[in-house]
């Protein structure tokens, strides 16, 4: 993974010193709250429902054991012993004190981390395929470009006051595991006409109040021009994006209102005039960064292991975990393991300091020291030898981290909701817990098969409800929490936005409603059909009828 050099280190330390000064000025009264707020937000510090919340950038979801241990330490020393992994591969602490913030930032800088641009109308942390560098279907490792974008976008002089926040995602594999079609800019690494790799560039995807699937602006962009092309895309947005209405300020609205052809025309014209040579990265600098992302030296190993086979025969929980949580790796005899943060009854994405330390230890012991955060709020050990799986499973299980429900119904995505969030209109965590408990039986989940259930506590859609096969949106209806259900969304290559199925449900009725939807799918599915297949074949009618009866 990338390591800071003197430049990066000094840069981050300077920002810490800057915040220390700003916090002191706030506490001594030189800065008012109105003046301080934008400054603390630039460092990821929000004032939430119960307390201050700190959002820490985990660049493209990659962590070292040392970093994860430091996060565990921060959780224990400065918070209440746990943190929350978000749907953008970041980590949030919910109970930090303002007075401790400078020390926390220093502790983060000690392990080459920061909170810069985790809030505000600027370019945020880039989302990436959490299996990057390991996935069997990978064309090229996207992390190098993520790091290039991280550096290029950090305190960019021109693009720090955009109309609204800006999120970029990159996937370098055949399957889209970074939801690129739901980002402001989505980049897919593809093979071009001459066999060289480049980017398919999508723009204007997003969730929130007005969800859109990204539109293609360029089928193929030569890799060396990525930064100058992004520069032009951002410039057109910065100049012409709406600033009169916060709900219409994202680039998706600009692209929608102008039309993709007109937006493309503007971008290409700007790019034509752009000083590409001074913006695009020289090969030497690319090579310097790329050197950090050399794959670990994994010697191919046997693809079968007697210990694994024997355990699989006798232990159904292990067999289920193996089936769902061990993903194919590009090197024979290895696998990428999903460390579940979705044990039924727990808050999706929460991890205690002890859990973080356990994962850090196991990553060193079994995983070549690599850890990733998935936007589905799980952790991943990307490089694990197949024969180590039983031992790893036992160690994870002891920490409650071996639930074998990856990509099943219990692996639901959920925002913090009204339990923590100042913007939320309704709770999402307790609903998610109730649903997880309802479907706790692994056999039931196995019967249902792969399904994506996403829940948000407000229209801002941090829980990605629009892209859930089943989406749940909490709303406030005259003081009562009400939950709207959408069906048919997908975050993958067949990206689509779910449709509202009918009137909302009260909190206590939501698990029943989900049960009804799932049972309807099982009753109607053809051989081998996923939920999405059945939905796309049959449409809303059978589900409506099951939920609301014949009308």
């Amino acid at each position, binding site marked *: 993974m990338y390591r800071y050099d003197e430049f990066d280190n000094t*840069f981050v330390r300077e920002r810490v010193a800057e915040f220390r000064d700003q916090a002191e000025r706030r506490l001594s009264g030189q800065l008012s709250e109105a003046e301080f707020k934008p400054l603390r937000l630039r460092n990821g510090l929000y004032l939430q429902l119960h307390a201050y919340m700190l959002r820490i950038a985990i660049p493209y979801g990659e962590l070292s054991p040392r970093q994860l241990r430091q996060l565990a330490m921060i959780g224990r020393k400065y918070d209440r012993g746990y943190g929350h992994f978000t749907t953008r591969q970041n980590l949030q602490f919910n109970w930090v004190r303002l007075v401790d913030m400078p020390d926390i930032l220093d502790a983060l800088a000690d392990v080459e981390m920061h909170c810069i641009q985790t809030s505000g109308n600027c370019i945020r942390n880039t989302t990436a395929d959490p299996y990057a560098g390991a996935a069997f279907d990978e064309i090229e490792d996207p992390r190098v470009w993520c790091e290039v974008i991280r550096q290029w976008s950090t305190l960019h*002089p*021109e693009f720090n006051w955009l109309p609204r926040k800006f999120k970029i995602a990159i996937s370098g594999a055949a399957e889209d595991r970074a939801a690129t079609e739901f980002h402001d800019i989505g980049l897919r690494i593809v093979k071009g006409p001459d066999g060289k790799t480049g980017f398919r560039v999508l723009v204007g995807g997003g969730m929130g109040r007005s969800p859109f699937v990204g539109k293609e602006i360029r089928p193929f962009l030569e890799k060396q021009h990525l930064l100058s092309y992004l520069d032009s895309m951002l410039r057109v947005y910065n100049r012409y994006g709406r600033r009169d209405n916060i709900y219409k300020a994202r680039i998706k609205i600009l692209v929608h209102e102008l039309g993709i052809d007109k937006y493309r025309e503007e971008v290409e014209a700007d790019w034509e005039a752009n000083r590409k040579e*001074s913006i695009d*990265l*020289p090969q030497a*600098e690319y090579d310097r960064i790329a050197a950090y992302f050399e794959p670990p030296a994994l010697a191919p190993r046997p693809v079968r292991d007697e210990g694994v086979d024997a355990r699989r025969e006798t232990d159904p929980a292990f067999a289920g975990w193996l089936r769902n949580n061990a993903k194919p790796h590009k090197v024979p005899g290895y696998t990428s393991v999903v460390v579940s943060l979705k044990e039924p009854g727990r808050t999706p994405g929460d991890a205690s300091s002890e859990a973080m330390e356990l994962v850090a230890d196991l990553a060193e012991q079994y995983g070549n020291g690599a850890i990733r955060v998935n936007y589905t709020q799980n952790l991943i050990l990307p490089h694990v030898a197949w024969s180590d799986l039983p031992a790893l499973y036992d160690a994870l299980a002891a920490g409650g981290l071996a639930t074998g429900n990856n990509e099943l119904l219990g692996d639901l995505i959920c925002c913090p909701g009204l339990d923590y969030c100042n913007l939320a209109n309704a709770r999402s965590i307790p609903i998610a817990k109730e649903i997880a408990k309802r479907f706790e039986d692994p056999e039931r989940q196995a019967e249902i098969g792969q399904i994506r259930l996403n829940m948000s506590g407000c229209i801002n859609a941090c829980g990605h409800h629009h892209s859930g096969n089943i989406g749940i949106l909490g709303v406030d209806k005259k003081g009562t929490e009400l939950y709207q259900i959408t069906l048919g969304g997908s975050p993958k290559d067949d990206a689509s936005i779910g449709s509202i199925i009918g009137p909302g449900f009260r909190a206590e009725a939501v698990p029943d409603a989900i049960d009804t939807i799932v049972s309807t799918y099982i009753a109607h599915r053809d051989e081998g059909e996923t939920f999405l297949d059945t939905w796309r074949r049959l449409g809303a009618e059978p589900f409506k009828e099951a939920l609301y009866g014949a009308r």
Partner: protein
Amino acid sequence: MALVDLSSGSLLTDAAPPIVELVPETDDAALAEAAKEAGDNAGPIAIQFPNFGDGRGMTLARLLRERIGFKGEIRAVGYLIPDLAPFLLRCGFDTAELADPAATETWKESLARIDRAYQPGVRNPLAMRYGKGESAGRAGDAESPAGDGESAAKALADKLAGTKDIAARMALIAESVDGRLAFSSSLGLEDQAILNAIAEARPDGGAFDIFTLDTGRLFPEVLETLEMSEIRYRLRIRSVVPDAKEVEELVARDGVFGFRQSIENRKSCCEIRKVRPLNKALAGAAAWITGVRREQSGARAEMPLAEWDAAHGLIKVNPLADWNGEELDAYLAEHNVPVNPLHARGFISIGCQPCTRAIQPGEDPRAGRWWWESEEKKECGLHMNPMRERVSEGQAA
């Protein structure tokens, strides 16, 4: 209207009104027209910021600088907060309107904080931080025989003696020497005069490779001066840094302030933090331009305008060797050259922070360097010519 000068952080109260004032919505055609109008009338362009979260003005300034090539003053007006200052500066603004002149200090502080940026931009013509810390530019002619070098140096010295105009001297150097022209700047007064002259003779820098030895112990004011200079001249000043491992070992051995304990310690500190990085930066250069003046210290009294530096295998050029302090001051004032604010506080020769103090009026200008040591030894080693050193020893004997 009060303005803050973004290149110095100082308050301007008698600014000329802008020739044109642009709204954030300004399109390309209107932008080009405004640049022409302002250019014809030699006056500023103002760009409006309706609120501090509106970044459109940043784009307009960059377009004016980078696409249209507008060279005049660009002024930010409207709702502006001090925290915007570094961003304005890096997008090409020269001045910003101050709602409250009392806030000048906060603006100044905000400007002083930046000394690193990832992006290319008006202040940083190179993509990301590419080129920082490594030799750039053309390599000098390989392995020139020393005899040729000596005669070339002598010829250059004669040419330079023909004029005292520093910009003309820089042009002569650029014409006469083929290859990379390394200019090691300490951001002192002499070096700033040379920088100004380079910018005059070769606005794009040409073959001049301008760098500073960032020893890790510099005054923050030195870095600020560097920043201001880059903005003023739109030239990159590379930072050449010492080897981290060597510094670690040095500090482990002698302690953080070990150089105060003995001259030997001090010299090994200079060696690791200055001499070796300098040698690295000079490798392959055709010429080395310095700001040394004969007046500065006894050891420098016989410095020629150009000489063959056999140790480094290049021509060492001292274009200010024959200037006196008054001439230098007059030049700096006349060209409004950005200078290190420490000079105004009694610092004359500024090196590393722990080894430099202010001097009293009348004291020797280099009395503020390594003040605990005696006069003869006060060289950091950068300008030690082994040949000449032997000669002077011989004379003393």
